[in-house]
C-alpha cells in the first residue's frame, strides 16, 4: 500500500516537474480585434468584419478572441464588443466560430459612427486585456485608417503604451487621401515606430488572405 502511495506521489511529482520545466506548454494564442468606427472608416467596417471572419475561421481550438472598437475615448470596457475563448475540441470550436460570425455580422449591421478616433486608447485597452491572458502568443489586429483624431475631453496622444510581447497587425488600412501617398506611408511609419517603441512588433497586411496566415500559422 505504502509502495503504491509512494509510486503515485512520485508520478505526480514527475508530472508537476515536467510542467514546471516547461515540457508542457500552451499552443493557444489570444487575438484582440479592434475596429475603427470613426467617420472616415465606419463604412469599411462590414468588410473588415469579413476579413476578421476569415482569420477566426483559421483559429485553433483553445484560442481566445476579443473584439473592441475605436471610438472617441477607446480606453474603456464599454468599447469591448465581445470576448470569447474557443472550446478545446474541434467540433465545438467550429460551432463557436460560426456564432462569432453571426455576432460580428450583427455588429457590422448596426455599427454607429464615432466623432473622434482614439487609436492609442484602443491599443492600450487591447494590450491591457491581452496582458490578463495566459496565452504566450498575443495579437492585436487593427482595422483602421490609422488617422488619429482626439477630442478635448479624451486626449490620449501622450500616453505611454506597453506592447511588450504583443504583435500588432494593421489590416485593411484604407487610404483616406489618395492624392497624398507620402502622407499615407509617413503615417504607417509613424505607427510602426510607435509600436516598436512600446516594445511590440508591427506587421501590415494588405490582402485579406494574409491575415489568417499571419495570425494562425505561427
Amino acid at each position, binding site marked *: 500500500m505504502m509502495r503504491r502511495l509512494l509510486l503515485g506521489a512520485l508520478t505526480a511529482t514527475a508530472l508537476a516537474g*515536467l510542467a514546471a520545466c516547461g*515540457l*508542457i*506548454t*500552451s*499552443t*493557444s494564442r489570444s487575438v484582440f480585434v479592434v475596429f475603427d468606427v470613426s467617420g472616415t472608416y465606419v463604412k469599411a467596417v*462590414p*468588410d473588415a468584419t*469579413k*476579413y476578421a*471572419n*476569415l482569420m*477566426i*475561421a*483559421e483559429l*485553433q*481550438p*483553445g*484560442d481566445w478572441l476579443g473584439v473592441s472598437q475605436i471610438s472617441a475615448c477607446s480606453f474603456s470596457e464599454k468599447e469591448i464588443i465581445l470576448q470569447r475563448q474557443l472550446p*478545446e*475540441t*474541434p*467540433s465545438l470550436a*467550429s*460551432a463557436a*466560430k*460560426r456564432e462569432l*460570425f453571426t455576432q460580428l*455580422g450583427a455588429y457590422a449591421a448596426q455599427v454607429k459612427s464615432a466623432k473622434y478616433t482614439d487609436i492609442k486608447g484602443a491599443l492600450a485597452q487591447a494590450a491591457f486585456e491581452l496582458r490578463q491572458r495566459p496565452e504566450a502568443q498575443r495579437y492585436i489586429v487593427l482595422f483602421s485608417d490609422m488617422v488619429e483624431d482626439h477630442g478635448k475631453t479624451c486626449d490620449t496622444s501622450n500616453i505611454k503604451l506597453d506592447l511588450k510581447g504583443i504583435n500588432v497587425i494593421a489590416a485593411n488600412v484604407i487610404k483616406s487621401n489618395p492624392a497624398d501617398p507620402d502622407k499615407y506611408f509617413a503615417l504607417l511609419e509613424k505607427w510602426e515606430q510607435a509600436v516598436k517603441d512600446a516594445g511590440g512588433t508591427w506587421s501590415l497586411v494588405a490582402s*485579406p488572405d494574409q491575415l489568417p496566415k499571419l495570425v494562425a500559422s505561427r
Partner: protein
Amino acid sequence: MPVIPAISAICFSIVISPPHSRLYPPGESGRVVIGGARARAAEGHAVEETVQAATGSPSPDAAIDGGNFFGIPYGWPLAAVIVGVILFMWMARHPVRQVLWQIFFITGRVFGRWGLWLKEHGQAARVTCADKIASHRADELQDRMLMLEDRIGHRAEKLPKETTPIIARLDKSTHTLATTANDLADINLEDTAERAFRAAMPSIEQGRGLSKMEKTIAQNTARAMNERLVPVRPALTALKTEGPRLRDVAQKLGKIDQRFNQGVEQVNKAFTEFEAIVKSEDRVKVASQASILVPWLIAILVTGIALSGVFLNFFLIERPMSEIVGEGARIAGIGLPTFAAMIVIFLEFVTGVILMDSAGFTRLIPAFHSMSDGGRKIMFWVAFTFLAAFSVLEATLSIVREQIIEQQQETRDLANRALVSPTLAAPQPAAASPEAAAPAESATRADETRKAGLQLATIAQLILAVLIPWLLAAAALPLETIIRNSVFMVSIASSYFLLALAFICKTIAVALKGAGLFVLSVYDLIIFVPLGIQRMVTGKRGSRRSEDRRERKERRKEEEASSDDDDPMTLNQPISKRERREREKELKRA
C-alpha cells in the same frame, strides 16, 4: 675496418670545404650563377647572385664573406663545431640511447601489449558470440523438435479414430474372404458330376436309347453344376468388391505410414543437427552455419512495411484525438493530440507484442516463458480483447475525423462566402421562378455527390482503422528476429573491430620498434669515428673483447626487447632456429 677512416676522411673534407668551392673556382667563391647566367658570365656580363648555403635563399652577407651555416662560418669553425657535436654525442651515447630506447621501444611495447590485449578480447568476444549463436541455434532446433514431437503426439492421438474404421473394414473384408474361400474349397465338381451321372443311370436303363441317354446325362450334369455354382456366384462378387476396397485401405495405411515417417525424419534431422551443435567444439563453425543476416534483413523489411502502416495510422487518428484530449497544449514541443495518437499506437503495439507472446509465436517477454498454459491463455484473451477495443476505437475516430474535417471546411466556406458576397443584398429572384429552381437543384445534386464521396471515404477509413491495429500486432513477429540478430551482429562487429584495432596497435608497435632501431643505427653512424678510436684505444689496453662483448650484450638486450611479444600476427621478428626446432619437436611429440 679500413673503410671507416676512408669515409671519415671524405666527410671531413666535405665539412671543412665550403659548398661553393666544389662548384666554382676559388675566384668566384660564395657566388652562384642563376639560370642561363653561366653563359653570360663567360661573356663577361655575368648576372650573379649569392645564395645561402643551407637554405638556398640569397644572402646579402654571402657576397661580402665566405658564407655561414646558422651563423657559423664555413671552413674550420664549422668543422670544429661538427667535431665538437660528434664528440658530445659520443660522450652522451649511453643516456641518449636509453632515452631513445625509452621513446621508441617502450612505446612500441605498450602498443604491442595493447594489440595483444585487444586481440585476446576480440577473439574472446568472437568465441562468446559464436557460442551464443550456436546456443540459440540449438534452442531453435530444440523448439522445432518439441513442436514436431507435439505434432506427432497429436497425430498419434487422432490415429485410433482414423485406423479403427479401417481396421473394422479390414476385419469384415477378411471375414468375407475367408467365408468365400471356405465355400469355394467345399465345391467338389468331380463328385457332383459323378452324382449327376449316377442319377442319370436309372433313366438310361429304362430308355435304352443312346441319344436320349446322352441328353439325360448332359441335362443332369448341367443341372447339378448349376446348382453347385449358385452359392459360388456371391463369393465371386464378394471377391470382386473386396479387392478394390482392400487396395484403398492399403493406400490409406501407406499414407499414414508416410506421414509418420516424414515426421520422424524431421525429428531425426533436427535431432542430428542439435546433437552436432551440442557436441561440436568448433563453435565458430557452428555459428557460421546459422544464418543471421538474411532473417534480419527480411525482418527489417517486414517491420519497415509495418512502420509505414503505423505512419498511416498516425495520420488517421491524430486529428480526431483532439476531440478526446483537446488542443491547446504541447508536451515537449509535441502537440497534445499528436502525443496522444503516438501513445495509442505504442499501446496497440505493446498489446500486439503481448498477444503474439501469449500465443507462443514470439518470446520477447520472459515472464510468459514461466507462465502456466492457463495464465497464457488468459493473457492471450485479454490482449485480444484490448486489441479489438483499439480496433473499435480507431473505427470511431475515423468517423469523428471525417466529421471534424467537414465542420471545419463548412466554417471556412461560410467565412469565404461572406467575403465574396456583395455588402448590400442583391434582389433575389422569386422562389417559384425557373431561374431560382435550376441553381437550387444543381446545388442539391452537388451536395448529394459530395455526401456520397464522403461516405465512401469514411468506409475506406473505417476498414483501415479496423485492420491496422491487427497489422501492428503482426509487426511483433519480426521484432524478435531484429532484436536477437541485431545483438549478434553488433557482437560480431565489435569482435572484428577489436581485432582490427589490435592489428593497428601491433603495426604501430612494429613501426616504432623499427624506427627506434633505425635512429640508433643513424646515431652510431654519426659517432662512428670516436667509437672506432675508442675501440682502438681500448683494444690496445687489452679490453677490446670485453667492450665488444658489452656492446653485443646491449644489442641483444635491445633485440630481445624488440621481440618480446609473442604474437602470431605475422609482424614479429622471425623465430630463432633453436626455438623452431624445439617447437617442431613438441609438435612431433604431440
